[in-house]
């Protein structure tokens, strides 16, 4: 069995899970919701094995390194962390339906990675040969994943708040009745960001430590660094906006969505549209 086969199984599992989640939204049948979650977590387990296997395969090829060194591997890892954080939030707060707005992110990521990218295992260029790569990537992506969950929950909030209109005393019926109350959604988004913000902070710090160790500057305003700081500012603004009155609810939800847009740009946009030290595989040293 090869890791690439298992990654295909994973993609398939996330696809089934997404479809079943939509069926859950349409039918409001609890069993269907449990099946959807179950399939997603089965996918998570397969993906965990696949990542481990790919790690081992790289050693068998004699270029051994953690599977987080190019765009393909990082997307795969990102989708894994998203479902992981979802599982944490699901087990802790027990709102099945959140998965319907989060698993699609993982599906999109995996589908893109499997269909559109070179999946081969590549040897590490000298710039990436460091343990810091591992610490840096893991903390960053766990943070990104928490922000993805916060974004999904905030979208739910915005939909539900729009349907309910200004009259919050009258909860929306139909599909919306399955959504947690908007106050709960608001709180979940805040909690996800409380997980994500320290992780992003750690991600930036480990990145700075690595840069200092490898290049002698912990901060050089390279576009990737700058965008991670922009993302950090946005979430810091989110946290402080909540303290002042009037910024919970819709405005906070929009801020969580904007924050995730900045996160995605930091992760992908910088590599695709801007140039710098972080462009995967392009760096000379």
């Amino acid at each position, binding site marked *: 069995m090869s890791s690439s086969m298992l990654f295909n199984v994973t993609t398939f599992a996330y696809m089934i899970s997404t479809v079943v989640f939509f069926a859950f939204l349409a039918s409001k049948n609890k069993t269907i919701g449990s099946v959807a979650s179950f399939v997603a977590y089965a996918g998570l387990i397969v993906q965990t094995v696949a990542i481990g296997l790919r790690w081992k395969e790289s050693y068998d090829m004699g270029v051994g390194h953690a599977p987080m060194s190019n765009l393909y591997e990082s997307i795969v890892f990102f989708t894994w962390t998203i479902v992981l954080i979802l599982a944490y939030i699901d087990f802790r707060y027990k709102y099945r339906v959140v998965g319907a707005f989060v698993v699609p992110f993982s599906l999109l990521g995996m589908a893109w990675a499997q269909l559109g990218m070179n999946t081969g295992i590549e040897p590490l260029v000298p710039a990436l040969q460091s343990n*810091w790569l591992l610490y840096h990537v893991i903390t960053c992506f766990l943070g990104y994943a928490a922000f993805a969950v916060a974004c999904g929950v905030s979208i739910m909030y915005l939909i539900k708040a729009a349907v309910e209109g200004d009259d919050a005393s009258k909860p929306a019926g139909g599909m919306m009745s399955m959504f947690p109350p908007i106050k709960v959604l608001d709180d979940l988004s805040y909690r996800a960001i409380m997980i994500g913000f320290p992780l992003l902070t750690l991600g930036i710090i480990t990145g700075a*430590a690595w840069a200092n160790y490898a290049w*002698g500057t912990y901060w050089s305003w390279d576009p990737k660094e700058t965008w991670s700081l922009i993302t950090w*500012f946005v979430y810091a*603004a989110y946290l*402080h906006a909540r303290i002042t009155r009037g910024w919970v609810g819709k405005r906070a939800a929009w801020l969580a969505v904007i924050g995730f847009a900045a996160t995605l740009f930091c992760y992908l946009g910088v590599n695709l549209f801007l140039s710098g030290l972080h462009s995967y595989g392009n760096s000379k040293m």
Partner: protein
Amino acid sequence: MATTERSFVDNVWDFFCSLKLTLFLLFSMALTSIIGTILPQGNLPPEYIASISPSKLQIYTKLGFFDMYHSWWFIALLYIFCVNLISCSIKRLPHVFKFVSQPTLVLPDSMRNISLKSELAFSGPVDKAQSRLTEFLGNEFSTPVVTEHNGEIHLFSQKASWSRLGVYVVHFSILVIFVGSIIGSLYGYKGFVNIVEGTSINAVGGRNGNPIPLGFEVRCEKFSVEFYETGAPKEFKSLLTVLENGRPVPGYSNVKVIVNDPLSYKGITFYQSSYGQASEGGDHFITVAPRGGGAPDKIAMREGTSIGLKDGSTLKLMETTQEVRQFAPGFTGPAARVELSRPGSAPQIFIVFKDFPDVNAKRGDSLIFGYEGTNAKMYTGLQVAKDPGVWTVWLGCALMVIGLGIAFFMSHKRIWVVISHGHARIYGNVNKNQTPFGMKFEEMSEKFKQIKI
């Protein structure tokens, strides 16, 4: 007059304490930072200058867009941010310290309608209830402080009151990081130096090109590159020796320096950054053998020069490489690209390899060329940095992580038990993360209600 002046100062103070200013600054810094990720920073490439209109170039330059993160207005934003942070903390800290240093030992009437509460009726004497409930709180939560007030006995116990300071640890850490970066920019430098194999340097080039003396010497013993099968580079390696007064420093001889593994000496660190072939003094050796057999001629020549051969043709050495893999997949080792011109026919350009004589011979021609390599030296390019502020920055980072942990994952939990004749009431309060504490409180109040006095 005095009152208006006072209120002006007040207004300024309120302005700098306000969270609105914080939000404005965070958004401004986030938005303006984007400029520097889109426009080139530092030395502008000529193609870029050619591609934009002169008036735009002038405006952007005036606004500092090409060195945006050091422009006066961006630095000003950062300083206002610090002032905001400091004034806000000064305003709020006394209030927070009060929570820590002067706990609310007596539950005021205004707090008695909080949601977490429960009641126990008893028939025994009050002092027995007091000792029994003190013990209960001590076992279940933490040892209480007992206060008598208006005929009631108040038991107060709390946990992690200091966690209210977590946020201020985070804020303080930001200032520490700023201080570290300022120390670095005042007392540190960044430089660059190329060292040719076998030679040494005692100064490096700073940002503006001025040499910065090191106070010691660094010699490059050797530089080498290793490649993967695929041709991608695997390792760039310099062997460096540190010399004081011309003598190698013990422990600093032939130190291996690779990317991600620098050399540090006396607070100055040398990072592997680039490499190349020293332009001076390199001869390349080309062999020319007649196909029919016979002793080959060995020619020494420099890159870019031409030489006349015995048969009247001209050989030009166009370029050479010590690793051909990137240019000719499937081949390895040193190689040279040459141009052979014979009178009356078009010049031929081809590659001759050092390690593949068969391939060299396959070129159907009356002459067989070979490449024997070079005596040219390599140089190693090193980034050089000195930053005495870096440990302050790491201290700030550690404080920030600790502070965030406290701010988000710990909470100040308080429990009061108020005893009067015939009944006791328990009250709970937490400053954040309501749910877990609520659950714990429910559990406790179940036990509380069962107590027999």
